[in-house]
């Protein structure tokens, strides 16, 4: 049973408390920042050490994808990169809860979910290098295209879930979005739809505390998971830096959705440790001290601490994961550099599924225009 929203606001806004800190019974945590397993009354996770090792590996690899991409951007190989540093547990926890029957609708930052869904990180890089707008097949991976316009994909996820209801499918949809996105009309309309149609969709909000330069307080006066109360479905806040808690909560939410109990909102309380993107300069709007606090809650360190302390991970294991990360980074780098520039004429491809005479005409124009240069060059 999902934890229910508390009544923090019941006294009215004149005595509204500040936004709740990430503690207390409303906060689902199964692994402390120090790496200790703890219990939660509503959520538990049966998990083997093997599985925790796998999660650790996922976390490290996802972080490595992120850092390699960041490096590639710095070296001019990518136009931009949306950093996920700090959000690995939220994404791996959610990503690993998704089965093949489920479908995830990401923003532009869900590299960790993409990884869990089997999308080659090199493919992701195409978008940021400017060679594609998302080269993977969403149907193949159960992972939609990156969506840049904030909030749009929450409605897509809801519609997809309504489709599952209509074709008797088994899965559920999961919509990813950020704290900033919670203000968009589309996201709130998605809540209305999901609620009214009792759609099997899980709203997974990564509250990383910032929407570019704007702190959470610019989007809400109460904890975000409580938004769901206004729409008649449950909301829960989970420690977004605790991969076990995220896994437990998302699994439960997906199970509820699949069995016909309707939508749920999960607020994964986490922190964007890096810049918004490589174009951003967070020193303009936030204090370094904030980052220091969050470093103590690092999503990877706590799993490492748990594995070390429990003996489930030894030096060999950690070394093998690091090696895998190095290999992956090398793959990402080589793959990125090898990404072919698109043919200019590919401009016209796939604008329409059934083509268009206007596009045909324009393609031909460009082709002969380009050919005229080739001719000129041939002459010289």
């Amino acid at each position, binding site marked *: 049973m999902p934890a229910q929203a508390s009544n923090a606001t019941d006294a009215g806004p004149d005595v509204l408390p500040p936004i709740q800190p990430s503690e207390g019974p409303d906060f689902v945590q199964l692994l402390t920042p120090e790496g200790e397993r703890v219990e939660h009354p509503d959520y538990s996770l049966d998990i083997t050490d093997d599985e925790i090792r796998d999660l650790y590996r996922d976390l490290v690899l996802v972080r490595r994808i992120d850092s390699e991409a960041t490096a590639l951007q710095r070296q001019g190989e990518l136009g931009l990169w949306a950093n996920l540093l700090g959000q690995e547990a939220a994404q791996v926890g959610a990503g690993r809860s998704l089965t093949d029957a489920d*479908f995830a609708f990401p923003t532009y930052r869900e590299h960790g979910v993409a990884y869990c869904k089997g999308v080659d990180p090199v493919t992701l890089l195409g978008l940021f290098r400017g060679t594609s707008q998302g080269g993977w097949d969403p149907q193949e991976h159960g992972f939609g295209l990156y969506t840049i316009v904030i909030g749009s994909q929450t409605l897509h996820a809801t519609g997809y879930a309504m489709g599952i209801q209509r074709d008797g499918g088994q899965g559920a949809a999961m919509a990813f979005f950020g704290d900033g996105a919670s203000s968009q009309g589309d996201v709130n309309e998605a809540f209305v739809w999901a609620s009214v149609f009792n759609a099997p969709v899980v709203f997974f909000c990564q509250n990383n505390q910032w929407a570019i330069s704007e702190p959470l307080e610019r989007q809400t006066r109460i904890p975000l998971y409580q938004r769901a109360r206004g729409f008649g479905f449950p909301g829960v806040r989970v420690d977004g830096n605790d991969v076990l808690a995220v896994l437990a909560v998302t699994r439960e939410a997906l199970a509820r959705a699949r069995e016909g109990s309707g939508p749920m909102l999960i607020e994964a309380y986490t922190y964007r440790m890096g810049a918004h993107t490589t174009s951003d300069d967070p020193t303009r709007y936030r204090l370094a001290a904030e980052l220091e606090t969050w470093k103590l809650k690092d999503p990877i360190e706590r799993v490492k601490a748990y594995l070390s302390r429990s003996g489930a991970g030894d030096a060999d294991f950690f070394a093998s994961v690091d090696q895998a990360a190095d290999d992956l980074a090398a793959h990402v780098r080589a793959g990125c550099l090898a990404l072919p520039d698109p043919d200019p004429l590919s401009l016209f491809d796939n604008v329409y599924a059934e083509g268009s005479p206007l596009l045909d005409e324009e393609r031909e124009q460009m082709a002969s225009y380009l050919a005229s240069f080739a001719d000129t060059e041939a002459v010289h």
Partner: protein
Amino acid sequence: MPTHPTSTMTLGKALNEGLRKAMENDPKVLIMGEDVGRLGGVFRVTDGLQKDFGEDRVIDTPLAESGIIGTAIGLAIRGFRPVCEIQFDGFVFPAFDQIVSQVARLHYRSAGNVKVPITIRIPYGGGIGAVEHHSESPEAYFAHAAGLKVVTCSNAVDAYSMIQQAIACDDPVIFFEPKRRYWDKAEVDTTASADPLWSANVVREGITATLITYGPSVRTCVEAAAAAEVDGHDLEVIDLRALSPIDWDAVFASVGKTEHAIVVSEAPVFASLAGEIAARISEKCFYSLEAPVLRVGGYSTPYPTSRIEEDFLPDLDRILDAVDRSLAY
């Protein structure tokens, strides 16, 4: 289904029959929108469909247009073929973002992996004595958005086939319905084979000048052509039907013959689709034009109150005035 293959029906009823046929032919076709179910739509275009196909296939949605289009996208990704109704032209704008940034682009963005066969039905145009936001002609906004296809019907025969073709099309189609022609009747043969969706229709042949038009203005232009006969003018009238892409061959062939072109539509002329038509004819028929392409349309004002809407809308006199001006060059 009508019992006889051919029967007289209104444009609205023809759409209703076309929708029914599409739903019968393909179980993935869904209808969604405000009041489309029990009520059958404010214009009754979806009348009886929920009763016959159930609430899961004819969905009365919450009152939010972005939600209608946004969820339709998800349904399309799941393999459905949603037909969304926007209740009136003026209410499509809350959905504009989902339409131009998502519907129009998913196929491109996904390099062809994701098809978005959504049909968005929009009753449009003025002349029904309505209050604000119920008489808009927003076709230019959609024609300018790459990735969308835009069509409009002008009569019951086309309505019946075009709605089915639009639904069957794997591309997103904005389907504009000329609301003040909903009650216009015609003989519809439901067994006849239809023209291609992307073809213009020469609804009247003539040699003096070409009226290029679409949707609700087609009838006005045909009436103007009849009136012009009295003055000895033999006007050709082209119903574009497809607004994006446009069947230019049909247009250029006609203008090449008549050497005079007048574009007629209800939208404010400034930066409109009529501008595109005029610009392209001016370019492609440069040597054959005996007069500049003239445009008769709405003024550059918001759609006015109904008591003066007839002054805003292109009517016979304004069309004939333009013909005279064109022929006077």
